[in-house]
């Protein structure tokens, strides 16, 4: 049984798992409180009707989609450097999609009616397509990851049906984040989101944030599990992160140019609110500038040749970029689109403790899944290495 591999471990492993379970428990308790009272326990309002939950959802769809950054080079270009990391990317995607689903669920006013989305399918709604693409992607990656790992364990080639599924998962990964961008980019009157650049921007920032997270996980595995994906792999991931970060910053500059050179106030006011504040309200300015500084700092650490090969600097760079892009998408994107309101009012939003506890609980659920999956992968790798 593959699953058994996740259920044996050192004290350190169980300490980590217990800590995560505790966070999940806190999150569940907070969610029960939210169910009891309603979404009034959050910082959301009739004007800022989406916040932390939907922003985390959006960020995590990106993390899920970014698996394609290891799957594509490995399966299409036979990039052997990614031989040990590809399956980690696939399982990371599974965990990320599960967390996405949970973030949607906790954001709902009537979560018990969630099946209405299936019972009354509405193809006009992008949410319908988002559900389909995410569900498909989850099933695909779970099937691919589980089957290839089982095959590896029995030291046989994976069944032939996995190959077309893997190839399908490549455009599918692009589709999940494109459809997620379309959720926002097709809304009249929300000019911050209504840009054709939103989907490319989403993909670029995802392809930086996801591999950055993978680098951090790889460095962590090397320390705590004596499992090394290899320098070639982290080096290549670093190149991907660097290029994708450049693309993200480039796209952001494109938005800034169009917005401010055209001088249309309705378009400019959202970026202004985020970066400089409006009418004396600037709750996001410190965050947004931190994001910009961290993104540039991370980029410098990644592209200066003499820094290459230094794991500590690589870890710092990956963390800086991950945080920068989390602020951009997991914080600014949603609220920045809703404020100023259609009445051109500034309505501030900050998440409440309940919201943060629930969100932490869902992140912990994702981390728990990642822990279990990675544990299985490492156990199988050890077994087969010993058998050799």
């Amino acid at each position, binding site marked *: 049984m593959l699953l058994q591999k996740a259920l044996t471990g050192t004290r350190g492993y169980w300490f980590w798992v217990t800590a995560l379970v505790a966070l999940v428990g806190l999150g569940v308790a907070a969610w029960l409180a939210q169910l009891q*009272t*309603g*979404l*009034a326990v959050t910082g*959301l*309002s*009739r*004007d800022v*009707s*989406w916040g932390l939950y939907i922003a985390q959802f959006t960020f995590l769809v990106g993390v899920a989609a970014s698996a394609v950054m290891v799957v594509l080079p490995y399966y299409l270009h036979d990039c052997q450097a990614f031989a040990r990391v590809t399956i980690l990317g696939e399982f990371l995607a599974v965990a990320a999609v599960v967390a996405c689903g949970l973030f*949607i669920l906790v*954001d*709902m*006013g*009537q*979560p018990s*009616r*969630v099946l*209405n*989305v299936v*019972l*009354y399918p*509405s193809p*006009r*709604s*992008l*949410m*319908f397509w988002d*559900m389909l693409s995410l569900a498909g992607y989850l099933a695909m990656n779970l099937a691919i990851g589980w089957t290839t790992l089982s095959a590896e364990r029995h030291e046989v080639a994976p069944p032939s049906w996995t190959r077309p599924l893997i190839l399908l998962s490549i455009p599918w990964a692009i589709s999940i984040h494109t459809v997620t961008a379309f*959720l*926002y980019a097709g*809304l*009249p*009157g*929300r000019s911050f989101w209504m840009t054709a650049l939103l989907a490319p921007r989403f993909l670029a920032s995802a392809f930086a944030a996801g591999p950055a997270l993978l680098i951090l996980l790889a460095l962590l595995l090397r320390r705590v599990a004596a499992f090394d994906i290899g320098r070639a792999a982290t080096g290549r991931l670093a190149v991907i992160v660097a290029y994708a970060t450049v693309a993200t910053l480039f796209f952001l500059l494109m938005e800034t140019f169009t917005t401010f050179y055209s001088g249309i106030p*309705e378009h400019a006011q959202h970026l202004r609110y985020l970066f400089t504040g409006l009418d004396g309200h600037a709750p996001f300015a410190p965050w947004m500038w931190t994001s910009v500084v961290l993104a540039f700092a991370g980029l410098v650490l990644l592209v200066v040749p003499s820094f290459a090969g230094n794991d500590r600097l690589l870890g710092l760079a990956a963390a800086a970029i991950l945080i920068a892009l989390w602020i951009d998408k997991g914080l600014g994107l949603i609220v920045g*689109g*809703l404020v100023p*309101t*259609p*009445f*051109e*009012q500034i*309505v501030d939003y900050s998440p409440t403790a309940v919201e943060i506890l629930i969100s932490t609980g869902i992140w912990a659920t994702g981390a728990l899944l990642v822990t279990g999956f990675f544990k299985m992968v490492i156990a199988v790798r050890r077994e087969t290495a010993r058998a050799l």
Partner: protein
Amino acid sequence: MRRSGAGRRGPRERGAWRGAGAPAIQTIDRRQFIGLAGLSALGLWTQPPARASSVQAPSARRWAMVVDPKKCLEIDGCTRCLAACHRAHNVPSVADQRHEVKWIWKERFERAFPSEQNVYTEDSLKGKPVPVLCNHCDNPPCVRVCPTGATWKRDDGIVMMDWHRCIGCRYCMSACPYGSRSFNWDDPRRHMAVPPSNDYPTRTKGVVEKCTFCEERLARGLAPACVEACPDGALVFGDLRDPKSRVREILRARHTIRRRPELGTQPVVYYVI
């Protein structure tokens, strides 16, 4: 059946709101429609298919409203339309502004019409409150985005809400460019100023709600509650498809504007300027 009010407005022009004594209006609600559709589907077995078309055009009307903000301002601080609507529909009066539920309310002219911002606005409207409500768009973004069909557009143009199907995802609230949709952040029954009326359902927490042009009153041949309550005819309701209707008459004679027409949503709430 209560038919007071509508008859109060003196001589009624043809096509203006017809209250007491008018023939029952040919609106049809969804349940009736489904029932009829089901019956006619059964009928297809025995009858020529032409029968089915009899339910295709339940109403040739297109309900619309004309607001005259200057008339509205004649009575200082008048909020009768708001009170009548919110009382009729058990709309909670939530103290916390962030969690307000509003079907019709007043916004400053500049806020309701952000794209009409001249540096120097006409004094009579500058900073003045104008009534705003759901625009019952011809091309409603809220209906487009709803993932469950809990909000939909009827043939007579009314954008409807099914509070039993709504999952509370609030996608419609992001999609509405008019801020016309409210969410029940907690149990609305906790915020009732007066005991809720039994004539209209209260909502549950976690669902979105908004103005429905008083479809429940239209079905009984009554004018919308806000229109009925308006003391000076600042709100006019009628059929946009009838060239002789009062709303069409006003649209012919006066300059009117709509909120954010550039978005292509085609609102049917017009404002006389």
